[in-house]
């Protein structure tokens, strides 16, 4: 999908929109009545728009909050603040039944294929659950649709009447995808869908995701720490650091010209196979900051930033720009 198309898609009502989403985790420290609460802002005011048929790639490392964002988006984890809109409608607002129906339009595929299927449920049953949830009750209809879904993800009828532990990681991931598809969703959050798989299987699953998107007109939020994976599927990319989006742009632009120092760091840290044995000096960045060293009120990336100046501590940077947006005071300035 070209940049222009993706922009057109955004011009209409985005399929999924997130406005100023926040999720805090608090951990009680100290004695039961006298301790304080340590608050971790896993998602710290994130706003995103995802157009129909698009893939938004969300890049971040551990601690960035990207997985939490995916789960909060689907209301699997209650949010602290902000809104989540599906086709313009707030998903949490409506009645319980209505919101459940709405939530079925948004599904998720998880990273760990070993934990994402009920080990005590036959594979076919896991998928049938989805079909029944979607309202199907006729047994014949269910079986036939089950067969279609299983075939669509590249599995065969021999995989239906067995337990998940007999399948390999890649096969389980296919089952997880089939289950997600069983309720006819429009939107799927793929949370590190291939990270736990072998290299040769990763390619199979990525191809499958691409094919299904084309076949069913799906919209994806692809969460990954792996820039290569993002590159393969994403139209638009957002980079997340410590709960905030620090850069977002159409994929080609981000990969051609990363602007935020953190994005640049991610790119430079990527081992490049095309360097063919030449030991490319990857430029050592500052090591991880100790906990608590992140300054209040200033830019969260300050401790690790090679372009930081004292002024960066004065305020939190916000996303600025047009199609390619970056949250950095130093963007555009000389080194």
């Amino acid at each position: 999908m070209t940049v222009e198309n993706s922009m057109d898609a955004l011009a209409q009502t985005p399929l999924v929109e997130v406005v100023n989403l926040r999720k805090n985790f608090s951990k009680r420290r100290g004695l039961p009545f006298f301790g304080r609460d340590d608050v971790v802002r896993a998602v710290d005011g994130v706003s995103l728009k995802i157009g129909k048929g698009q893939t938004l790639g969300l890049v971040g490392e551990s601690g960035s909050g990207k997985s939490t964002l995916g789960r909060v988006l689907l209301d699997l984890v209650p949010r602290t603040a902000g809104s989540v809109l599906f086709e313009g409608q707030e998903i949490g607002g409506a009645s319980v039944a209505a919101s459940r129906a709405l939530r079925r339009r948004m599904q998720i595929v998880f990273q760990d294929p070993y934990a994402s299927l009920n080990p005590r449920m036959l594979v076919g049953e896991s998928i049938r659950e989805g079909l029944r949830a979607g309202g199907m009750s006729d047994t014949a209809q269910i079986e036939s649709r089950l067969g279609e879904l299983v075939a669509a993800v590249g599995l065969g009828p021999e995989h239906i009447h067995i337990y998940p532990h007999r399948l390999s990681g890649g096969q389980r991931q296919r089952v997880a995808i089939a289950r997600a598809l069983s309720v006819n969703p429009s939107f799927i959050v793929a949370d590190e869908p291939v990270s736990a798989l072998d290299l040769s299987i990763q390619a199979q699953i990525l191809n499958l995701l691409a094919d299904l998107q084309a076949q069913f007109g799906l919209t994806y939020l692809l969460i990954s720490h792996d820039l290569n994976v993002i590159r393969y599927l994403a139209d638009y990319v957002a980079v997340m650091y410590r709960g905030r989006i620090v850069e977002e742009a159409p994929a080609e632009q981000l990969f051609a010209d990363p602007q935020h120092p953190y994005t640049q760091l991610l790119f430079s840290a990527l081992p490049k196979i095309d360097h063919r044995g030449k030991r490319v000096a990857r430029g050592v960045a500052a090591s991880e900051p100790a906990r608590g060293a992140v300054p209040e009120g200033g830019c969260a990336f300050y401790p690790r930033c090679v372009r930081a100046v004292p002024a960066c501590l004065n305020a939190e940077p916000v996303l600025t720009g047009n199609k390619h947006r970056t949250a950095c005071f130093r963007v555009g300035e000389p080194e």
Partner: protein
Amino acid sequence: MNMTDNITLEVEDLYTHIGVQGGEVRGVDGVSFVIRRGEVFGLAGESGSGKSMTAFSIMRLLPLRGRVVQGSVRFKGEDLVTASAERISALRGDRVAMIFQDPMTSLNPVFTIGDQIGESLRQHRGMNASEARVKTMQLLESVGIGDADRRFGSYPHEFSGGMRQRVMIAMALACSPDLLIADEPTTALDVTIEKQILALIEELRADIGAAILLITHNLALLAEHCDRIAVMYAGQIVETASTEELLSKPLHPYTKALLGSMPRSHISKGRLKPVTGLPPTITGERRGCAFAPRCPARMAHCDSVGPLILEPEPGHQVRCLLFGERP
């Protein structure tokens, strides 16, 4: 100077079997390779390829049901397979060290890191507590853990993943070993931390002149850090070559398939060429080439004739019938 003085590790015809319900799995099925002094040797492969088993076989750290059934592992001329248990204990941690994948579980949670690093020193170098402390502080500094004084008495759970891996490296390098085996050392870490850890390993290696056996499924990582790479599949090495050669002129169909199936950040939305099917576990008799069922270049007799290792070009070995049947 004799050529063999230069060789730190020579693995020859190594076979390791693991007992499972109903038989044995051939985890390592005839593996041979050589690591020279100061060399960084990469062992690539997916899960089930036998790369970790190979490392455990070298270190004699196999699980209860695993045993080396054949072959030799010569560390500076001395065969580790037949060495006594005391000799192995003496060598482990001192001349041959290993770091593991998951820093969360590789460190003992009830001892301070100063204690754990110092243990090697006390055991192998006979240092007393204060000597060990001094050396440990130096090690902590050298692996980039600042504030060593305070960190000395800290417990593993107070560290992040990257820091713990640094501690592991400090432990491994405490006695300046000749060989460092790193089994997926950065797989559990973020890519920015990974970069630092590998830079650290390389720096320290240069300081003490150790050889490194780097095991990982991440081909890109091996590309950047290794001098030579061996690719493993189903317990066997299918191709060995210098990094340059392997990446520019891969010979084995599996190697080619792996390289072709990797999403690369500079290639946009093309179609990946995945390897179809699943990697096998080897039980019972091996008949023919293990990769044949998935091989795009498969020929008629690949299912019945097991390929031997050939060397079509100097320094570049491959196990595939495409290159002939006899060495």
